[in-house]
């Protein structure tokens, strides 16, 4: 049973490949003069955003609209939530309005899981980022971007990321993007290396299915993709690192470092970028940087996820053959 997308860890390899393949089909819609499919006509998707995140919200909104769903944007700011309404009562309200899917962004880790498992609503729940826990659609669009770039849109169909080496650099401790990517990329067969100062790596990371390095220079030459994470300047006030300058000297990606990467390797960033901090303008604006593609791919991935969760009586996610076997 897979009615929700809460964690990238819930996806099997076949689930993930199915989502990526479906996203390729969705990407073709974007090339048509009329960028719309009738698939979710009459279904209601609620974007429930307790945190400001314009880019994620509009990405989900565009995805739902291209599938012809009715979209309701529920922002916690200026709503009853700011007056003290609980997550439960908000959920009951959405349920009463007949939401078929709730896309939730919340500052508290686990809030989407609570929403999906507490019996408050019947609809599908899609995690659009919860606290410092997970952001599974970001990981899916990152995997999609890597597969397109390294294997190719057509050649990539049906394939995973077996043997690819992907390096994730930055504030791992506070990053939901890193957590989801570690789960998903390893499920897809890639080898993940996390790079950060030791202060920004969580205690307990040794149990994660990936390597950890404190030196960016050591891993660049063997990376097929380098994913730079945003580092918030406020972190230095909590003594995670001494100064911005020291951070970018040790962990920032500039042209010189990019030159150490293999020729085919790409630079990724989930956005928003802090230019001059974790990435220089030279790198951000180079051909090897996929940041704008990632935005476009985000819409395709979110279309695929909504389509598979809501698409029919036998939702395609749960109908994936490998899952049925696994459930035995």
């Amino acid at each position, binding site marked *: 049973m897979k009615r929700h997308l809460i964690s990238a860890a819930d996806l099997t390899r076949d689930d993930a490949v199915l989502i990526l393949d479906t996203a390729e089909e969705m990407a073709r819609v974007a090339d048509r003069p009329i960028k719309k499919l009738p698939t979710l006509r009459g279904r209601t998707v609620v974007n429930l955003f307790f945190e400001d995140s314009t880019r994620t919200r509009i990405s989900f909104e565009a995805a739902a609209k291209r599938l012809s769903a009715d979209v309701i944007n529920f922002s916690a700011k200026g709503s009853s939530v700011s007056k003290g309404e609980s997550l439960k009562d908000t959920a009951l309200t959405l349920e009463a309005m007949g939401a078929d899917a709730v896309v939730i962004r919340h500052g508290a*880790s686990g809030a989407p899981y*609570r929403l999906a*498992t507490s019996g408050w609503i019947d609809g599908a729940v899609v995690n659009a980022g*919860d606290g*410092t826990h997970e952001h599974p659609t970001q990981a899916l669009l990152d995997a999609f971007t890597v597969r397109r770039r390294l294997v190719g849109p057509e050649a990539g169909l049906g394939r995973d990321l077996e043997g690819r080496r992907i390096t994730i650099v930055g504030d791992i401790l506070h990053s939901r993007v890193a957590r989801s990517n570690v789960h998903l990329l390893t499920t897809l067969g890639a080898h993940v290396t996390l790079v950060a100062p030791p202060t920004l790596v*969580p205690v*307990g990371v040794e*149990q994660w299915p990936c390597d950890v390095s404190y030196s960016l220079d050591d891993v660049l030459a063997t990376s097929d993709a380098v994913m730079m994470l945003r580092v918030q300047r406020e972190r230095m006030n909590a003594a995670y690192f001494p100064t911005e300058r020291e951070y970018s000297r040790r962990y920032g990606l500039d042209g010189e470092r990019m030159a150490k990467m293999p020729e085919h390797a790409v630079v990724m960033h989930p956005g928003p970028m802090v230019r001059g901090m974790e990435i220089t303008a030279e790198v951000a604006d180079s051909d090897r940087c996929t940041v704008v593609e990632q935005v476009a791919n985000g819409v395709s991935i979110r279309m695929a996820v909504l389509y598979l969760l809501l698409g029919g009586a036998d939702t395609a996610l749960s109908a994936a053959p490998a899952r049925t076997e696994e459930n035995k």
Partner: protein
Amino acid sequence: MTMSKILIRGARVLGGEPQDVLIDGETTAEVGTGLDAGDATVIEAEGRILLPGLVDLHTHLREPGREDSETVLTGTRAAAVGGFTAVHAMANTFPVADTAGVVEQVWRLGRESGYCDVQPVGAVTVGLEGKQLAELGAMHDSAAGVKVFSDDGKCVDDAVIMRRALEYVKAFDGVVAQHAQEPRLTEGAQMNEGVVSAELGLGGWPAVAEESIIARDVLLAAHVGSRVHICHLSTAGSVEIVRWAKSKGWNVTAEVTPHHLLLTDELVRTYNPVYKVNPPLRTEADVLALREALADGTIDCVATDHAPHPHEDKDCEWAAAAMGMVGLETALSVVQQTMVDTGLIDWAGVADRMSFRPAAIGRLAGHGRPVSAGEPANLTLVDPAYRGAVDPAGFASRSRNTPYEGRELPGRVTHTFLRGCATVVDGKLA
């Protein structure tokens, strides 16, 4: 509640050979075999265990201030159901129990409830703020006769304030019960820091935040020649420090909660706030170390840290939820499962860890006494063969935030006697 003669027939006193125990008025009149019932009411207690009335060093009764979660009356009813005849009511109420007036009010409410004795704990510092000592002497001299002082819920983290408090209470044989939590290391902490917190993306509460305070405080207690009590010790490292301090002959005591003897941080994977508690649930290795320490006496006693919360404070996302679990009505069952049924201690050990020692630490008169003639009849009768799933709907507590809902636990308190008065009969409040 009847005040006549009661004969408990054939109970295993502290788990020993079956004996008869005659209660006359407020006192245990006779203990022996083949006692004549005479005009006494007879309780057939074959197969049951008779313990001294249990004593809790750490209970949150919430009154005054949060009567929506618990009152002294409902809390003492829950205590009686759990086999307790005395509880220490923690000071973090609204207003804080930091004056003689508030501790006397709580003490008086306890006397009026009649279900168990309520011994108020006084705050160490004004408003639990850790800045200025509360009037510890006035609280001690009040009708409440406070001997245990604690800012529980908050750590007395200032080393000078802690030192002064430890020194000051020597004047009246008081004890400071420390909630060991280094505040800077636990900013934003949501659960035990480790493998699970890393995965769940919840702020970590590292073991070292507890252990560093305990290490400091045992050294301070030794330095000023006072005694210190460690609340709800939760890590294997804390056990090592207390064991070391005791080996030096220092006057250090410690308690462990039932939930830290049974539950681990793996449960947090459900994001169900019913498992949110402070200190947090730790790892399996910690649980095993705590059980061993309770068995070998490094940890002196079990204390519930009964922490009632209204439903809405747990029916929400993890980060927004209150910390704490109710525990009075399930404590003995959890101890039976984790300590007795595992062979780590016997029922005499339970009497020691849940009655004799906590009463001694709190210098509580009339409780934690042997089951013998001439002693106050504070007694708890337990059916150890009982098995049943925990049903919060049946709780006497006003709150339902138990982590054991639906879990099968062994043992049940069938009778509780407070100075000869039955407060619980056949598992039901009298």
